[in-house]
Structures are given as C-alpha cells and as structure tokens.
C-alpha cells in the first residue's frame, strides 16, 4: 500500500496558520514526522481560502521550496487549480512527484493531464465529471473511462494513474460504502494496470467512533484492491491496519512486513 500523508492541508486550521505565517519550521516538522512514520508521498495543499489565486501560487512556491532538499520523500501537489499544480511541479524540476487531482471534466483533463506527461508525474484522478459524483458504480466508471482516454491521448501510462473511486458518508446514504468498494473492484477489473487511491475517512462522517469504521473500511478497500491511501501516517492504529489488511489479503509475502512491525 502506498501511503500519501495528508497532514499538510490548509483546510485544517493549524496548517492554515502555518501557511499564512510562512512558518517554515512547523511545515518541515510536519513533513518530517510523516516521512518518518512511513509516508511514501507527502501531500501539500496550501489552498487556505483566504486571498486570491495568486496567494495560493505564492504559498505553493514557499511550501515546495522549503520542503524540497530537506527530505527524499516525494511530494504530492494538491490543488483544484491547475496553475498552482503547474507552479509546484516547475519548482520540483523533474523530481519524483504526484499530482492531486484531475477530474473527468473536459477542460480540467486538458489542462492537468499534459502536466503529468510533461513532468513524468503520477496522477490522482477523481471518478466524477461535470454532473458531479455518480451514486452508481457504472456512473463512476464512465468518469474513469474519460480520464483514461485523456491519459492515452497525452501519453500518460495507465500505471501512472491512481483513480479515486470517491467516498461519501454512510451516515447520509447507507449504500455509500458499498458503491466505493464495488467501484474499486470494477476499476481493477475493467482497466488493468490502473491504480486506485482514496481518502476513506469521509465514509464515517457524522458517526461516533469514526476510527473503528475507518479501519474496517480500509480492510474492505484493501480486499477490493486499493493500491494507495491518503491518510494520517501518524495514526498508529490506522497504519497498523494497513499491515493487518495487506497480510490477510495475501499482499505481504511470507508475512514479512506484518512480522517486522509486530514481532516481539
């Protein structure tokens, strides 16, 4: 399982403050802790919702310049604005990277997918289109098709694409979890080579004891074929659940990683 550390996200109040104050020390601290906890990528989202597009561009320049060179863990540039993504990738200048995200909207794909090709990056693509998030597996697969068609057009290998089947709260629709799980299986079956990624904690929104549900859901997603997860790597219970899920699903040869983590 590829772990994408989610903690540098401007929608979290503490992180918003770090970004607005240009607090490089705290930013690096948050980065290093996640890398040490086993993150394979560090997600960087600096969209504070304060100020203009230009402010977000200045913030991504600051964040990427501050982090790069300090750790070897690659960054995942996270923004709804392709211009912000392009800026982040230019600074990385060919270093390994991931883009978060594109969606199956014509204009969005035409802007973001070429960036993936140009920078030989990886792409997180959301299974949604102009009409929003479909509540059926078929609807979400249609979005996946549009995304993968665009990737082919611009010469992005299917293996570099991580599709997010998207997770909606079960508290408002009891079938939400099932649709995500079935979409993961369907993506793996319909688009061989394509990878899957998801944030998963949205599933438990509005319910008590969320971490219990998140862990159970992670296990089910692993069984369905999930390749990567956008999570808090400092959450020890969840990181342990990655190991228990993978070993049970036959994705940990001779139980090596499980034993390394839990052997006495």
């Amino acid at each position, binding site marked *: 399982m590829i772990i994408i550390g989610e903690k540098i996200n401007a929608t979290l109040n503490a992180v918003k403050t770090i970004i607005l104050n240009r607090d490089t020390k705290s930013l690096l601290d948050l980065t290093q802790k996640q890398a040490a906890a086993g993150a394979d990528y560090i997600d960087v989202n600096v969209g504070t*919702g304060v100020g203009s597009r230009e402010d977000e561009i200045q913030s991504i320049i600051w964040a990427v310049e501050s982090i790069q060179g300090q750790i070897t863990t690659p960054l995942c540039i996270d923004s*709804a604005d392709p211009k912000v993504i392009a800026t982040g990738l230019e600074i990385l200048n060919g270093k390994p990277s991931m883009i978060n995200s594109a969606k199956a909207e014509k204009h969005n794909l035409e802007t973001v997918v070429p960036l993936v090709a140009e920078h030989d990056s990886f792409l997180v693509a959301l299974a949604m289109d102009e009409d*929003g*998030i479909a509540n059926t597996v078929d609807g979400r697969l249609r979005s996946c098709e549009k995304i993968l068609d665009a990737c082919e057009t611009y010469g992005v290998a299917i293996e570099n694409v991580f599709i997010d089947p998207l997770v909606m*709260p079960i*508290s*408002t629709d009891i079938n939400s979890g099932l649709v995500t799980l079935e979409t993961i299986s369907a993506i793996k079956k319909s688009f061989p080579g394509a990878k899957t990624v998801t944030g998963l904690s949205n599933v438990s929104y*509005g*319910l008590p004891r969320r971490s219990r549900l998140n862990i159970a859901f992670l296990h089910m997603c692993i069984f369905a074929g999930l390749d990567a997860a956008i999570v808090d790597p400092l959450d020890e219970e969840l990181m342990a659940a990655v190991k228990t899920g993978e070993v049970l699903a036959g994705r940990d040869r001779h139980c090596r990683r499980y034993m390394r983590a839990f052997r006495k």
Partner: protein
Amino acid sequence: MSTSELLEKIAFNVIQGRVEAEDDGFDPGLEGRPAVTELVTEALDQNIDPKKILMQSLTESMETVGDKFEKNEYLIPDMLASAECVGVAMDLLAPHLIMAGVKSKGKFVIATVKGDLHDIGKNILAIMLKGAGYDVVDLGTDVSMDRILNAVKEHEATFLGLSALLTTTMREMEDVIQQLKAKGLRDNVKVFIGGAPTSNDFAVQIGADAYCKDAFQALDILKEIKRSP
C-alpha cells in the same frame, strides 16, 4: 384507537424514524409494530383531518427531533430517518391536503449554488419545509444563477434558500442576490443562506435576509417571520 392516540403514535414513530412496520427505530424492540406508513393510512381511513396530522404529528415531532439533534442526542442518520418519515407521510397526505383546500405557507425555492455539490443540509431542509407545510422547489446542486433567477420568477417564490459548503463557492450567493436586485425580484423574496463556511456576518455583508446554522434554525426563523410579518 382514538384520534389523539393515533396522532400521538404517528408523532412517536416519526421521532423513532420508522417508516414501515418492519423498521428498526431509535429505541430497540419496535420492529413489527405499525409505523408511519401504516398509521397515517389508518388515520386517513378514519377521516381524521389531514391538517391535524400534518401539524400535530409531523411538524411538532420534527421540532422534537431538531431539539434532540441540537443536544447531540440524535446524529445525522437519526435525523435523516425521521425526515424520511415526514417525506413518506407527506406523500400520503398531499392529495388529501389539496382536497381539504389547505393552502401552502409559501413557495420556497432551494438550491446549492454553482460549483458546489454538497447537499446534505439542503436536502434535510427541503424535507423539513415540506413537513412544515411549505411548497418546495428543489433545484438540486451546482445550480447556475440563471436557473435560480428563473425559478424565483416562474414560481413567484416567497423564499429562496441558498447553500454552499466551499469557501470558493459561497461568493456565488452574493452574485445571486445582486442579480435578484438587478432584475427587480429582490423585494418579493426573502433570501436564506446556509452551509459550513457561511455566517451571520457573511449574510449581512452580502445582503441576505437570514443566515441559518442548520435546517432547524431555518424553521425557527420562518416562525419568527410569520409572527411578525
């Protein structure tokens, strides 16, 4: 069963969130007992005034649900289960209310603004408004300004509810209000706004009539308006 007993039972089951007899409720052990569908059908068979069913069994019980939600005793699924009961009951009652000549309290156009797909709160409000006797025109999510303006005009709406969950989309509300003014529609319609990033200050700033923390507050504000028009 007497009329008052029946009305009370319907209210109890709305609060329990039980649509049909087989449904589980908030409390354990209710499965198999008649629920909202069966009880409302029985009440209509007994020719109980549909307006009484609406006011005493639905509107009042949803107020109780609102209180429980405010106190964190009820969570989102509890509230949605109750709202579903109101929706089902209203479908059964609607033809009878029309026959009885019960007038709607007003037309309420409701939408999640352009660029935004979040609709949990909006959907709850839509059901609650129906249960409170309003005529609801729900335009859905990611609704363009033109569609909102056209709906307000076409339906001669008394109220307009705008929802947004993103800091990037909440600005759209201000544009809608400006356009209502430009088209001369602003004076005929009261504009309610809601959604996580919005606030009372924001409502004042963009010239909305009211900010609603949640669906229940929207209903409270409507009651205030009725009292002091």
